[in-house]
């Protein structure tokens, strides 16, 4: 299964990566994506998750080809 992973803003700095291309078989949920892409980093408080640019939860299922993003609370406007 191939997943594109993105980290933004302070989370990008915490993890030290902006983009990760995962290619692994042991991925079922966004939590798995986080664990592998972050290098077993603890989930960050208030962290937001998007799967294919829609807001999602860590428990949500991912599928081959998905884009999964992790970022802090948004502060636009």
């Amino acid at each position, binding site marked *: 299964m191939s997943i594109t992973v*993105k980290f*933004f*803003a*302070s989370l990008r700095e915490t993890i030290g990566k902006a983009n990760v291309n995962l290619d692994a078989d042991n991925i079922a949920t966004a939590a798995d994506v986080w664990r592998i892409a972050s290098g077993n980093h603890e989930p960050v408080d208030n962290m937001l998750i*998007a799967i294919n*640019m829609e*807001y999602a939860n860590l428990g949500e299922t991912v599928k081959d080809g998905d884009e999964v*993003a992790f*970022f*802090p*609370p*948004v*502060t*636009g*406007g």
Partner: protein
Amino acid sequence: MSVELRGEPFDPWQELQNHQNAKPELAGKFGATSIFIGTMRDFNDGNDVQAMTLEHYPAMTQKHLDTISSEAGERWDILDTLVIHRYGDIQPNDPIVLLAVWSAHRSESFPACRYLIEELKTRAPFWKQEKTGANSRWVEYNTPE
């Protein structure tokens, strides 16, 4: 219904004029225009702020601003909306966001304009990083309203 992301400074008055001029079919139909402009201040949370960088998630930002604009159009009887939002390096006194709603009556344009900014603030993926003196800091949360 227009949503635009901009990497360079924009002039809100020129944008509003251009948008209206490009929609001659609206002339005479709208009685109410409600506008909100969010502008960068030179202070925040008690500190002077010299500059700001606004990071975003381009495709997701565009998608959610489109969705929010569509929702406003479903909830209120409005004729048109305009959303322009900056990203990148921003200086104090630069406009960050411009929102405008045209409708026949103000009872529709006012709440629709407020809806746009509140939903944008909670759903559109933008992140502000402020430069305060030699340091920079991520803004951790938006004010609730």
